[in-house]
């Protein structure tokens, strides 16, 4: 019976790609005492190397393409990417802009999409919980399939 600690201690990296900050404020609200996600062991680390869950808001533009890729690479496996808000999902209301190339999944694989503009804290938490389930599955497949398989699952960039 395999068990992982990943669901009990998911550390997040929160990155604002091209967001208007609406979703970001909601993410940070989730960390506040009202919602208090730390009771689930969630910690907002600012460091990709310490993170398990990549919370991205906003869409991809020419400036942040490399950065998003870089941050994704720096997160050790297993990891999940949660795109928060419609801009992260598809580009949102800015989709037609000349500099926006679309949602996060144009650059890195996304595991969970949390819709909303701005996404509400409850949805965000729900999305993270879903993400944790995916994280556990990835870890178990990492264990069984060996490290080489995990690399295929984890980083396709």
């Amino acid at each position, binding site marked *: 019976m395999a068990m992982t*600690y990943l669901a009990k201690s998911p550390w997040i990296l929160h990155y604002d790609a091209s967001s208007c900050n609406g979703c970001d404020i909601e993410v940070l609200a989730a960390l506040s005492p009202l919602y208090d996600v730390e009771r689930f062991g969630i910690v907002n680390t600012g460091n990709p190397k310490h993170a*398990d869950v990549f919370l991205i808001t906003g869409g991809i533009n020419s400036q942040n393409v490399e950065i998003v890729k870089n941050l994704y690479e720096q997160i*050790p*496996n297993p990891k999940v990417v949660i795109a928060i808000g419609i801009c992260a999902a598809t580009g949102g209301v800015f989709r037609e802009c000349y500099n926006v190339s679309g949602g996060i999944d144009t650059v890195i694989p996304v595991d969970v999409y949390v819709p909303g503009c701005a996404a509400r804290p409850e949805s965000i938490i729900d999305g993270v919980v879903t993400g944790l389930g995916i994280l556990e599955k990835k870890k178990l497949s990492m264990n069984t399939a060996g490290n080489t398989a*995990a690399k295929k699952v984890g980083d396709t960039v």
Partner: protein
Amino acid sequence: MISIVNAVIYILLAPIVGGLVAGIDRKVTARMQGRVGPPILQPFYDVGKLFEKETVVVTISQNFWVISYLVFMAVSGALFFSGGDFLLVIFAFTLSHIFLVLGAYASYSPYSHVGAERELIQIIAYEPMIILTAVGMYLVTQSFNISDIVASGIPIIEFLPGVFIGYLMVLTLKLRKSPFDLSTSHHAHQEIVKGVTTDFSGPNLAKIEIAHWYEYVVILGVVWLFFGFNPVIAVAAIIITYFLEILIDNTFARAKWQFTLKSAWLIAGALGLVNLATLYYLRGGVWL
């Protein structure tokens, strides 16, 4: 007298005790902030999770620095609990901290570089005070050996009140609590991201965390030394001191390194040295 049994018990049990202390710390902090907070076993979940991540390094030597840090931290603590020479324990701890600093230098990101420099400043900030603590205990009990200090039964706190207050500053620095959490911190990421631990991940970070747990046990053990003449008072003192540290942590903002260094040295000089000098003078001044 060196007790191997104590050393082994320490090496096996200290991570558990240290982890629990860390967990209680987070719970109390959360309550102070009006939150529910994580379960007390959370640090163990964190470390367990970290071991499950893959190891990602910037350079292969990081593995070496981290394992050396952990090993020598455990060795230093084992030396403390087996009753060895207090000064040697302090210098062994310095050795292990240097490994962490070098690990941060080896991963050459600007954040870990600045973190390493600040960590060095922290080390030189608290080292005089902790040496003076050891010297103070010597002046009271006539021995540098921890086993003798514990066995002496003398109420050390009565003779070293200034030194104790100075030691509280060391405690704040070593526990990485605000206002002296310059080089790395468990709280929200700071202006240098995670400072010293920026480029460590997965199992390496887990080992650093375990090393911190080893350290917690020792530095709280030093508090015990002040009150060891009565175990009940000693435990109470440890609890009160730690609670005080959490309170200070939640009340103060991070200080600049200039303030840290100056205040640590001033306190060491003013409170520590004056205390020791008074003791020295009262005891006749010349020791043979």
